[in-house]
């Protein structure tokens, strides 16, 4: 059974493996940190959030300060799909962001139907509140 853990990553509960959702490639043990199985690339934040005003004339330009921020990108090593972009001060260790109890997950899903795709959830329905503003 496949569990859609993030938009980019799947856990195959039977194989106990992380998988890439984009290409289906196996990554590594579901009991381990998926980041260990990814291809990592640190990025200068200005390559993503480029200056909007002239960096030669201004100190603050809408671009982050590369002395303060590194963006670490995690790619599927098989297909290059970007699964996570982690914003860290330079030198800070990556954070183990998802650590699920695999045995509990198996027990939980043993009584559930498998899903073929991630469940998006209900669409937003506006509550019955009308917003009248002062002054008119």
């Amino acid at each position: 059974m496949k569990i859609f853990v993030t938009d980019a990553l799947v856990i195959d509960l039977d194989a106990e493996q992380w998988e890439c959702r984009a290409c289906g490639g196996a990554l590594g043990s579901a009991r381990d940190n998926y980041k260990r199985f990814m291809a990592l690339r640190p990025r200068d934040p200005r390559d993503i959030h480029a200056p909007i005003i002239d960096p030669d004339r201004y100190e603050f330009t809408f671009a982050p300060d590369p002395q303060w921020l590194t963006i670490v990108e995690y790619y599927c090593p098989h297909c290059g799909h970007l699964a996570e972009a982690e914003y860290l001060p330079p030198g800070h260790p990556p954070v183990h962001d998802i650590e699920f109890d695999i045995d509990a997950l198996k027990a939980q899903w043993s009584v559930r139907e498998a899903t073929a795709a991630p469940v998006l959830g209900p669409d937003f329905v506006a509550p019955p509140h009308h917003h009248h503003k002062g002054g008119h």
Partner: protein
Amino acid sequence: MTSSSDKVNEFLQDATLFLAPDPEIMNNHGFAPRSALEERCMAKESDPARIEIVRERLMAGANESFEMLENMGAAPGAKWGDCVSAMFTASGDLSLASTGGVVIFVNLVQYPIKFINKYWKNDPSVGVREGDAFLVNDAHYGQAHNTDQSLMMPVFWEGEHVAWVGATVHEGENGAIEPGGMPSIAEQTWDEGLKMPPFRVAENYVLRRDIVTFLQNSVREPKLQYADMKVKMYTCRRLEQRIHEAIAEFGVEAVVACLRRNLEDTDAEVRRRLKEWPDGTTRHAWWTDGTLRENALIKINLAVTKKDDVLTFDYRGSSPEFANRANNTLDITLKGMLSQLMLAYVWPDLPRNQAVLNSVRFIFDEHSIMRPAPTAPISQCMMSVFTSWSVAQVSVMKFLYCVPDKYTRVIAPWYCMINTFLFGGLTQHGEMVGNVCADINGMGGGALADRDGQQSCAPIFATMADLGEQEFMEEEMPFVQLVSKKLMRDNQGFGRQRGGMGYQMMLALRDSPAWGFMLTAIGSKFPNVPGLFGGYGCPTYPLARVRGIDVFEAMRTDPGQFRYSIAEMMNEQPFPEAQYSTHPMSLPYALAARGELYMIAQGTGGGFGDPLERDPADVMRDHEEDLVSDEVAWRIYRVVFDPQTRIVDEEATAKARQAVRDERLAGAMSYDDYCAQHVTAKPPAHLPYYGSWDDTKTLYAGSPDVSFPAGEAGPPIIMPHPLQVRIDALERQLAALQTAG
């Protein structure tokens, strides 16, 4: 019968010289056990259908009172929905909040009500009687921050105290060291203006004029203080009236049982839903980049653990407190914010009451930025509590994505910072004012799995707040937004679905003998929010200024000179005689000159998913609406298109995108190699770093060489005055020149 321990308690209470905030109240966010009144009523009334009818009746009363509050409130915040009204149990638990409005405010009103119940009710010098109203603004007794004021009124029926009602407004002005109620230069709690513990301001439904006068005399906006006390009192009276009517029709048992059942049913439903989440831990850390007086990298660390039906937010490892900076928050403020997270972004179908947090536990380090000393200022708590909220939003979404039964959709982080001007001075009508612009509500929404985020939409603390009307503001205030609510190109949280974008604004003072602006936002060096699942976060945001010019004169003589975007104004510099500069978005209150430009942009929400998967048609739609440039369409989204016709070359796009994926892998390394090459044992020496690094038990305080165990009172972090820092630097320069010369 009075036991000896009761007598000891009575003696201790009489001997207490000062009734400070009570830790027993402040450290408990759960709801009270059933009272004798509740047991009695629930034994008599248990028909769920009848209770549901009562609930709908009370809800209608709460929403009606909210409309009153919003429409009559004099504070700018009230006009834009930064207010709320609610009903509480007699014990003080929030049972039913209005559908609109800021749920965090009323979540926190439980604390002052419990203080009143505990200390004033049986105190012969105070007491709680029908027709009383109590007022509070001191966050230490239970408010989000001291700029809010809550009025609370007990509801009686046939002489018995059966409920409480309350109304809260972000009032703004409160007599603090800077106008507008949220001073950034406060160095101690006594710089933060009015410090009202819950105290009685009305008897027999009449405000005490002597007390009102005292409060008016303590703030810059005496008319506002009086007007909104009346508004809040009439809002509470309407709530009281609707409760009385429900009791008259359905009986006191049905109403009391309903208020209680709201809590117990919500708690049971939350526990049922938590069981559907996977067991485990998600972790996320983020950094704020300043105190509003100086830039500093301040860690907010979170591990969320879900086990069975209990959710634990563990914020240990976050930054230590700042002794003389206003960016500390109280833990109750964070808890209130997280009730808003759960009620707006996870389970929006649940009734809005405090039971949503009953099965949630919190762990903080003592002396951390979330558990500061009582003397530490907290007036700009948004600078840490909003980031703490966003960190929780990301962590919760990572639990939620795989849950098959959802009650709303997974969303990338909402923009979380108040990119807005505060102001103060004399208006064109000769009034003294001090308050905040509605742009505080202009945060961009996060992207969803199948939909872009909403542009400059609502603040994280209220889903249905409003951006106000600038023209309405200009009737009362002497400044003009020359560019207002114009979305800013390329200010986008990139992703397969993009974040809701932020608008830009340019404002200038027009006519006032004395007027100033201030700006209290962080995120000029380190962004405020990330994206989700491969989406990117927001960029950073500066304050841009044009000085030495009166743009009103320039527009009169040569209107063609003006530029209508920050990018054009700053890059083209159309006024040759003016000075152009950028700054962090933290500007202490400073007098403004006529016609000088202040320019900021609202933030974008985070993107969702890999930007290379964005549908080229969506990129072209953004391009057509001038939301992305040619450059971003290529650099981020790799769309090959004709800029004139916007016709996409699908084949070339697919090829270009594959080339980027190949480049990614060619330039990447393994996790172990990354850690070996890039990860350091301590924070870098060039960063003023606060909080843990890899080990949450060790906190750094400004440098890799200063650290102490988390949870212990380390050396107090006392920041130097920024002007003193500048003077010292200049004196060193002067000394060096004198030695050389």
